[in-house]
């Protein structure tokens, strides 16, 4: 069991690193559901972060961009983040802490249950760079090729 976990988390950290190196995103992060306790979802791997604060966050289902992905199991993207409903800490902490101006996120599915077991989120810090449906397709491609079904 421990080995499987290690394998998949390794995959996740590799995926973060690979996307961050190959693409021009300012931030790449993966949040995963814990296997014990209250099954909290936390940001486990990230690249391009500005502080360690993201590690404190516990994702809330249905709240914020990543939370909506967890709840619906569908990709989600948003531009102009500093000026809309996601512009405060409570509704979308990760984009606030990392000062992202746009972000796109896709779900990562659990092998066993086929349910959402995590989120892959990328974002920019400069308003002129925007995320589109193409970004989503791109991320899905990465997910598929890495075989990350965690």
């Amino acid at each position, binding site marked *: 069991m421990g080995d499987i976990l290690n394998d998949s988390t390794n995959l996740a950290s590799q995926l973060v690193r690979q996307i961050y190196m190959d693409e021009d995103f300012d931030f790449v992060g993966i949040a995963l559901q814990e296997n014990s306790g*209250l*099954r909290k979802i936390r940001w486990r791997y990230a690249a391009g972060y500005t502080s360690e*604060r993201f590690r404190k966050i516990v994702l809330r289902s249905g709240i914020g961009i990543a939370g909506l992905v967890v709840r619906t199991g569908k990709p989600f993207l948003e531009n102009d983040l500093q000026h809309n409903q996601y512009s405060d800490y*409570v509704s979308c*902490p990760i984009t606030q802490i990392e000062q992202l101006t746009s972000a796109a996120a896709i779900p990562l599915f659990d092998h066993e*249950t086929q*349910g959402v077991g995590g989120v892959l989120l990328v974002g920019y810090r400069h308003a002129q760079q925007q995320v589109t449906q193409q970004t989503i397709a791109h991320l899905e491609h990465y997910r598929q090729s890495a075989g990350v079904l965690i």
Partner: protein
Amino acid sequence: MLESTSWIEKNFSESPDAIFIFQNDALLISNQAAKTLLENYHFSLTYLCSLMQSVLAQQRNDTDDCFHCAIKEVMPNRAIPVTLKTADNQKLAYFLVVTPLDDAQHTYSLTLKSNAMLQRMDQVAQQRKLVQYVNRAHEEERKRLSQDLHDSIAQGVYSAIMGIRHLEPATAATDQAAFRSQAKLIENQLYETLSEVKGMALDIRPSVLDSFGLVPALKALAQRLEENTGITINVIARAETEHLSEDVQTVFYRIAQESMTNAIKHAKCAEINLILIQHPHLISLEIIDDGSGFDTQQMGSFNGHSLGLMNMNERVKALQGTFHIDSSVGNGTTVRAEFPVV
């Protein structure tokens, strides 16, 4: 016409403001309030007249270099502050308003408005606003609870029900793997709902506060906010809280909650320190953030935005405590509440 004249007369004689009408500086008529005032206070009408004359003369002075004073232009009546003494030497503040009635016949009226009454009216208006604010906050709370119940709890339970329905085909086909994965899915769903319910219960009224006391409750609150926002929240508690009354503990908790929410929502802070300290005969709670801060002068006056602060202040005052906010733009905010203890 006759009727309306009598109404105007009635209005004049029963007005709460004391009204004197003068012609050539001699008293012509005065209303009931003016008569009572004259009986109760020791002052001479000539004093009022000369006071008024001197202020008018001062204002009409040609050498006054304030030619186009915008303030004077929007003030048709001259209002002069006057302090009157009662027989037992109590001072009461009034405003003296001069209204010229007929310049040709040198007729004018003097109206004495009680300053205390105006202030009392202001207070009442302020209290009304506060009550409105508290009521609205109650409604908002209910709205949020109802939304949370509907959107997250009900949704979670519904998903679990759907999940259980999906178990049936797996059982029928004796597909062990499918059964296990579906069961896991339902378990996760229920865990999520459980943590939502717990979170909601904590939001409404922290049971920790009732069963374990103030310090664990503050720590739980800090941890929850930290997890929701990623902001570092340190709780430093050097106090015995068992002997505090339930009211004081609740107020401390609510002040911590409101101040931290304010800091998170409005101040864009990165760190909050919560310090609860016991002094001899005094217990104090400080909430210090490193956010953007605000101008307390601007917020201190009565406006719609500071009602939350005012409400905290009222709650502390009601329990004989003191409440203080220290903030300036760019220097973060410190909220402090203190209560005397035996």
